[in-house]
């Protein structure tokens, strides 16, 4: 029923736009929602205000629809962040330094739901929290700028920019203090069944 509704919305938006191949928020939504899993390499740069050298880290990201995501950093040091619906687990250099239920940390929870919703294309879920501005760049390339409406999120960022084609390729987050975090995703693989190891990490105790 929801699927059918979205499809009819999609058709309607196509008709309205008049251009068969232009991207719309709905078409992006449709595309992202079709992805069951995403695996990608990431490069993260955190430019902290007042420091010269950015903090750069690389690793892989695994996202499994409605299960959660694993942030597996390999450089400059090993770090794994596991986000599943209920918990947040941070392991640094093989040492689990945080393992908490999401409910204990409302800010973290808000962040987690937002990020997961973005990757999964659940814009409906984040509309109440953000003002969304969609921009159709050329060649199937699009950009979405999100500005938080909700008080708790405003404490965290002032703006999030997403760019992508078939999936999100670039993310830029500006936080309240002016620190900017950019993420670039490469070598994206979609809908490949997740390894046992990954599922165990998500479901783990």
């Amino acid at each position, binding site marked *: 029923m929801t699927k059918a509704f979205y499809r009819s919305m999609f058709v309607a938006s196509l008709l309205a736009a008049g251009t068969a191949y232009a991207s719309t928020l709905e078409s992006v939504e449709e595309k992202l929602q079709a992805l069951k899993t995403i695996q990608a390499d990431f490069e993260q740069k955190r430019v*902290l*205000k007042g420091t010269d*050298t950015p903090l750069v880290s690389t690793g892989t990201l695994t996202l499994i629809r409605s299960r959660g995501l694993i942030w597996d950093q390999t450089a400059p040091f090993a770090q794994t962040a596991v986000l599943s619906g209920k918990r947040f687990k*941070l392991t*640094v250099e093989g040492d689990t330094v945080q393992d908490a239920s999401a409910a204990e940390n409302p*800010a*973290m929870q808000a962040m987690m739901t937002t990020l997961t919703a973005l990757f999964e294309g659940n814009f409906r879920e984040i509309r109440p929290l953000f003002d969304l501005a969609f921009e159709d760049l050329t060649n199937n390339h699009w950009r979405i700028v999100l500005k938080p409406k909700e008080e708790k999120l405003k404490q*965290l960022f002032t703006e999030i920019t997403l760019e992508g084609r078939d999936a999100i390729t670039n993310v830029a*987050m500006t936080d309240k203090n002016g620190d900017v975090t950019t993420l670039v995703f490469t070598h994206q693989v979609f809908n490949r069944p997740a390894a046992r190891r990954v599922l165990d990490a998500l479901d783990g105790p």
Partner: protein
Amino acid sequence: MRLTDRSRIPALIWAALLFAAALVIALRLPAEHVTSDILAMLPKAGGMSEVQDAFLARLNRQVLYAVKDEGAVREGFAQKLAESPYIERVRGRITDEEKRQAWAALQKTLGAVLTDAQIAKLADPARYAREVIGLLYSPLAGVSQSEVKNDPLLLTRRMLLAQKSAVSESKGYLTAKDREGQTWSLFFAELKEGLSAQDKAAFLAFESKLRSDTEKQLGQGALLAQSTLFYNRCAEDTAKGDMTRLGTLSAVLLAALFLLSFRSLTPLGLGLLSVASGLLLGGAAALLCFKTLHAVTLVMCVSLIGIATDYTTYFVCAHRTAPKGTPASETLLRLRPSLIHAMVTTVIAYGLLAAAPFPGLEELAVFAVFGLLGACLTVLLWFPLFLGPSKGEGLPKVKLFPAYLAAWKKRGAVSFAVLAVCAAVSAAGLMKLSATDDLNALQTPPAHLKAQENAIKALLGNDLTQEWIIAEGKNEAELLGKVEALRSEFGGKLLLPALRSPEVQERAGAALAAAHEAVKARLAKIGIAAGGAYSPSATLSDYLASPAGEAFSALFLSKDGTLYLAAPVVRFDPAMKKTAAGVYVHRKAEIEEMLRELRSHLSVFLAAAFLLVLASYFFKYGAKKTLGTALILGLAFTTSLGALALAGLPMNIFSLFALILVLGIGIDYAVFFSYLEKDHADSVLFALGLAAASTLISLGILLFCHTDAVRNFGLVLSVGVLTAFLTSPLLTWFGEKR
């Protein structure tokens, strides 16, 4: 018998005494010795009652406002409130400067409010450094440059995350959200210490105007307020209204009854004189015995007027029916034994109220004992001087009483009807009679205040003002040590200040320093020069100035060189009653427990008093009359309790005290009927009927009182006395004495 000069001496002494009483009242009454404070009416219970009182007095000075606005209206409201000369301070608006100060205070206390888990984490510096660096790299944690530089241990965010309060700060105001997600701005106003009753009244008038003005701008129900001050004002208004209304009504009805019965102004004047003397002596005695008189007591005292007039009634009746030319002193001589007897039984019954732990009832007891004594002494000492010899005019012929008595003597339909009604009320009522010791059943707070209180409770979470553990210490270190003991014993079941004891602070300080070094070293490796300074220790005043500690400032108290903390109970644990670290206090439960005990003691006492009365009756009047009296009093008890149940009221401590009075007053009727001589039957019946009518008028008036406890008391008392009066001719069925 002639009045000699010597016989005038007691009358003169009595006049001097009454003058002194009037002076006492004139001097003491205007200086606010009448209170309507609900707390003053409650019995003292539990340990540390003085400390409890001090905490409660502080609560008594606080008013909490919730304004459904986020704009100029709330600002104007807070501004005007703060400008009131009676306000010490208003919390709720936070300026940037205050925020800076609070932030500084927070930084100062960070190291002193660590939990055991946090201290354990800090004790592993390498691991702690890993966590910080992990969070710094994590895109999700949002750790900023400035944060990691100023607070490399990320303690501030930990503390802010750990705070779970319904109240939060938004745009410079303290706010809370209701269930519909609407934002309310909160203001905590504290009145100055030691305000007089007039000051408080002036403040209440001011704030009530301010509230209605604000509500006009925001709409009905957009401003909530909560304070015991409001309850007290309502109780005071109610009591004052009741006293004026019921007092006037009682006086008018009694005056009408007197005028109608005697068709002359003299008895009314005499009655007024006697009642006024009673009021003077009773009032002065009560003012001398108690620091303050409760307004509710004064309402109950109104009911004494009807009893006090009885002595005048008996005297006037006796004098009028005496042979023509009989001097007043001779009438008195004849009447004196029964007059004193009637007064003593009533005084004893009222005197027993002094055993009640309710200050209100104790005051009533003192007032009644001296008031009735005063009224009776005026009759005994002054009336013979004011009244000439009897004119032998007799009494108006009232057919009602003799006819009623005759109906009983004939065992006519009327007598059986009365008995049947009493039996029916007893049977129907006693089946559904319930007993309660619930304090809330004594006085119903006005619905609008209760509704606001509930709305505020919904905004802020649980009410934490009922149950406490009070800990004490000779100094800060000792008290904080007790807090540590309570924390390890009860954890989250108590609301405790996060400030650690000096001992724990010392332990935390060492871990803090090591972790700080490790984190700084790790951050230096990635090019971040972190600073930050963690004060290893904080004092109580540092803590109370910090945002987390400020809410606790009302829970600390310094009294006579000892420091106290009242920790509100979040979830009760039976072990709290036995903890060595503090005294468990649950005022309402303790008072109710005490009332329960008292109620069972009183029931036994009532039964014992009943048997004692019957025993003394048995020796004086024999078995038959004793049986009759037992029936009359028993019926008075059951009918009054039955009527109570039928009125939908539960039996409580006030009902039992009323029963004691039913015993004390009801026995008088039985005594009179036992004395009934054939030749004087009509005049005695007239006096008796009139006395009963006046008593019933002033007791019955208590039914219209707005205080539940007084209404309960009045209902049992008036129905009981009415039953005793109506059924006392039953004694004629039980044969004559001899």
